[in-house]
């Protein structure tokens, strides 16, 4: 679909170095990296805002490296939306339409209903909330059915609830409209929630490309490990307990006799899910402690790693859980490898994707 070969972009103050990338048709591809990694510049190069000094960009086998932006059939949505302030929402969305045929007007109706913005078509952009502006920008980019949709930090400026809604909407755009999407972010959770594949980027280079599991579980460098380092990432099947209204997630383990570990979460999901628990949200104790936390497991310490002020302790409860404690607590508890301990975490600490 889109293939980037050995791309070098030099903007004096910043450079992209030897980018190689291939995104497949219908794929949701996330580029993740810290601020200043060059993610936005890569997107801007794909739409034709910057010209590379070396390398090529191909779309469906056609070389578009030096093509004008208007002929590339690539849409872009910026973090700050870039809605034309002098045009109404409707005019913004229609902006890219060549001829306003009635079939196209149907498209607008369908698209704006789909994005839940059909009630704000007459408003001006400066009266919209962040989430509304984001959806208008999406509609504007999608109206021409671009081959690829580029999203530059589309969720960073939004509050948590709105983010969740837009994440679901983006998933539906991919599933229902079959749009190929390249999404840039600095947030691991966005990446895990949406990505078919992930590329990790830093200082103008791509460090690793792969499925989320692969990148998160087997980072190929220290930078990737530290940056995307989602520890305690598990796959399981979830159902909702009608009594407690909590999600009950079963994670396969080699632990006898059940063969699975049950984890409770306040985030409601069903079916096959991916979940993670931050190491700092897990308590470690020598004896079982009475607490309101719903997830308590007994296991043994598999490994201890001194990391300066904190100590990383891996506890095997059938599956390995990574926990971190301060050096002081580590010494107070007198933890040793192979020792039997309890780990405890709240149902609210279990993040489901």
């Amino acid at each position, binding site marked *: 679909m889109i293939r980037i070969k050995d791309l070098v972009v030099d903007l004096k103050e910043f450079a992209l170095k030897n980018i190689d990338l291939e995104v497949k048709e219908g794929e949701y591809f996330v580029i993740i990296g810290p601020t200043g990694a060059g993610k936005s510049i890569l997107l801007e190069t794909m739409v034709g805002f910057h010209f590379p000094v070396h390398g090529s960009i191909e779309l469906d086998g056609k070389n578009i490296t030096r093509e004008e932006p*208007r002929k590339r059939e690539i849409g872009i949505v*910026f973090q700050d939306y*870039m809605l*034309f*302030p*002098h045009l109404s929402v409707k005019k913004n969305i229609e*902006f890219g339409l060549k001829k306003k045929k009635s079939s196209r007007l149907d498209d607008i109706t369908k698209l704006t209903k789909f994005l839940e913005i059909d009630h704000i078509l007459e408003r001006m952009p400066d009266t919209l909330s962040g989430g509304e502006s984001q959806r208008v920008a999406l509609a*504007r980019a999608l109206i021409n059915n*671009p081959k690829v949709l580029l999203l530059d930090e589309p969720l960073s400026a939004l509050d948590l609830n709105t983010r969740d809604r837009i994440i679901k909407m983006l998933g539906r755009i991919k599933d229902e409209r079959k749009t190929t999407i390249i999404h840039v972010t600095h947030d691991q959770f966005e990446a895990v929630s949406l990505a078919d594949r992930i590329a990790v980027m830093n200082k103008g280079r791509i460090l690793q490309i792969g499925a989320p599991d692969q990148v998160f579980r087997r980072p190929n460098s220290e930078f990737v490990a530290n940056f995307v380092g989602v520890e305690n990432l598990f796959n399981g099947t979830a159902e909702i307990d009608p009594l407690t209204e909590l999600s009950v997630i079963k994670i396969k383990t080699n632990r006898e006799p059940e063969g699975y570990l049950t984890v409770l979460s306040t985030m409601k999901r069903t079916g096959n899910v991916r979940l993670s628990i931050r190491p700092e949200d897990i308590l470690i104790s020598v004896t079982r402690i009475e607490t309101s936390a719903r997830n308590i497991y007994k296991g043994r310490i598999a490994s201890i790693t001194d990391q300066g002020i904190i100590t990383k302790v891996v506890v095997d409860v059938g599956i390995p859980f990574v926990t971190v404690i301060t050096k002081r607590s580590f010494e107070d508890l007198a933890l040793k490898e192979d020792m039997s301990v309890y780990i405890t975490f709240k149902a609210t600490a279990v993040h489901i994707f």
Partner: protein
Amino acid sequence: MKKGLGYGKRKDSNLYRCKIEQKTDHMSYFKKTTIIITFLFTFLILAVIFGFIFKLTPEGFISNIKSEEMRFAFVLSLITSVISTIFCMLISTPTAYAIARYDFFGGRLARIILDLPISFPPIVAGLGLLIIFGTTSLGIALEDLGLKLVFSPAGIVLAQFFVNAPYTTRILASTFSDIDPRYELVAQTLGKTELESFLKVTLPMARSGIIGSTVITWARGMAEFGAVLIFAGGIAMKTETLPINLFLNLSTGNIEGAITSAVVLILISFVTLTIFEKFGGGKF
């Protein structure tokens, strides 16, 4: 294509709006002094304006306004300033866009040179024009083509253009620099050409700056004296614009006539300033 380098950067207009809130009634000497100076300064300007009004009788004003020479000067100023404003906008808009948006060879030097005439005394600009369009082969060639510039109304237009266009360019460049180039990029990803994206996105977004600069360019054209006098000659009833009418009246001892032109020029300035402020001209 690259972001502008902040050519003609907007000066912080809030500078004047960030007032220090004094919580007590006590006024420091510092504060008192600055306020007294402000009043004295304002008073000086008011005194000059009222000076005209006290010196001028309504009958004198009306008879001078009705004089053929005054009407000629007014109409000539109006026509030349409108034409020079059109030329200024036509040349300054693409120039301002290029220096605000693109990095190109010689761009930095062009910026400095384009700013030069702003700090020239207009009389110097007039002399410069006289030298290159006077008895040079360029001037003679143009005259053979039927375009006589020196000591002619066409020369008035050129003098006004030369003095004002750099200023217009500066205002427009500042306006364009303030518009994120990604707006145009989005327009282009939506199938528009560069020209279409400029016309449909940047130009409407620059509306205030364009109206403001048009009005100020026109007003400066109406009021241009030095360059016009030197280059177009200040010939009565031929190249006599309003400021030159004032000057000629004064040199022939017609004080009332001079004051009448002055009052008309002040009224024009007042109207212009009001329109300019309305379109956010305070920025520049």
